[in-house]
């Protein structure tokens, strides 16, 4: 079956597998920066995501992502390395000491991991499909590193100017390599969404990170950190559209040569 939309199951496209799940109750201390270290017991650096809330009912929830540092509000995010998951809290005003925050952390395995994992579903004897819900059909997963700005290969090499792929048409696609950007072409009626993480070689940690900077004309174009994923509705070919995954170059203020952009694209 081509085009993985408007159906319940299609074995051309896998479903997300959550390989780590943790509920955590954080008691805020009086510091502005607080870090809780949890050993995850996995044999790889997990790609963490999740939510946090003021209440254990999660009636209101916030994404577990680091916001821009100039935001003086309260935030919680997760970082990971090969051994631990780090729950990080930032409280500029020191206004939440003694308060509890409730956290749910989920994680995927990175594309480069091919080993086994312990089950995370306690009801694993049962196949649970609920047709009231749709499921996250993965159309592409990527693990791409930045390109050196001073290298312009005369012929295609692993260090390319860009990587190009059609996705969502001929089955699940895995994308690896080294390039400043990855151009993914998709087709009507798909409206794909994405998640991304960055492995920061400077800190040896991986965190969910989609940097979105919107600028008015007066402010001009800011230099982005990476990763980012932009949509270009029309490519010039009717029904074809483009997603550009920015992975960066070694230009100052962009990416380190050893950084990794992990991304997952959903139908």
């Amino acid at each position, binding site marked *: 079956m081509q085009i993985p939309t408007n159906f319940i199951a299609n074995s051309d496209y*896998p479903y997300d597998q959550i390989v780590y799940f943790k509920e955590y109750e954080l008691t805020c201390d009086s510091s502005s920066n607080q870090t809780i270290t949890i050993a995850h017991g996995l044999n790889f650096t997990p790609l963490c995501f999740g*939510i946090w809330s003021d209440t254990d009912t999660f009636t209101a929830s916030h*994404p577990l992502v680091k916001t821009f540092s100039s935001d003086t509000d309260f935030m919680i995010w997760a970082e990971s390395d090969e051994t631990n998951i780090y729950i990080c809290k930032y409280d500029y005003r020191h206004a939440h000491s003694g308060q509890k925050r409730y956290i749910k952390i989920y994680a995927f395995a990175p594309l480069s*991991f091919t080993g086994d994992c312990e089950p995370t579903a306690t009801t694993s004897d049962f196949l649970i499909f609920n047709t009231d819900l749709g499921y996250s059909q993965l159309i592409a997963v990527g693990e791409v590193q930045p390109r050196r700005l001073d290298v312009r290969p005369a012929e295609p090499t692993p260090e390319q100017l860009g990587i190009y792929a059609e996705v969502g048409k001929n089955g699940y696609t895995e994308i690896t390599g080294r390039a400043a950007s990855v151009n993914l072409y998709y087709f009507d009626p798909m409206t794909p969404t994405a998640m991304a993480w960055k492995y920061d070689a400077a800190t040896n940690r991986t965190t*969910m990170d989609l940097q979105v900077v*919107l600028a008015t004309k007066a402010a001009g174009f800011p230099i982005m950190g990476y990763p980012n994923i932009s949509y270009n509705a029309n490519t010039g070919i009717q029904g074809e559209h483009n997603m550009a995954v920015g992975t960066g170059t070694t230009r100052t203020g962009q990416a380190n040569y050893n950084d990794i952009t992990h991304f997952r694209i959903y139908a």
Partner: protein
Amino acid sequence: MARVNRFVFNSDFMTVAYAGRQEVTVTIPAKELPANVGSASGDVEVAVDIPPGCYTRARIKFTGGYVPADYACDGNFIIFDKVNNRQIDYTCRVYTKDKKVGVHYFIYDEASISSPQTVLSNAQTFTLILDFLKQPNT
């Protein structure tokens, strides 16, 4: 079977389910950035029909820029603007509530937070396409 890659479906692992998709238009109002403070914050909340405790995967469209911007977004983003030749930044975070989606914003004058000049920031309007995700099997 507990292998991760190249599978069809394996009930050993939790997966993620869509609880719905909705497109909303959000406007951050114009705010006065008082002299000697240089910042303002607040929340804009829009009614949507979502179950509580969902994780949100977002896409953001912004047409107020030099070119239309359309990005995947994991819940936080920044808007740059200029007022009276002063750089104004809007740092924003998306959250969900029962039956509502909210955007928390923090607006500040990048040039100085101790300026004696009060600045009125511009309103900013953008569209969020939200996928509400939940964990169906535990």
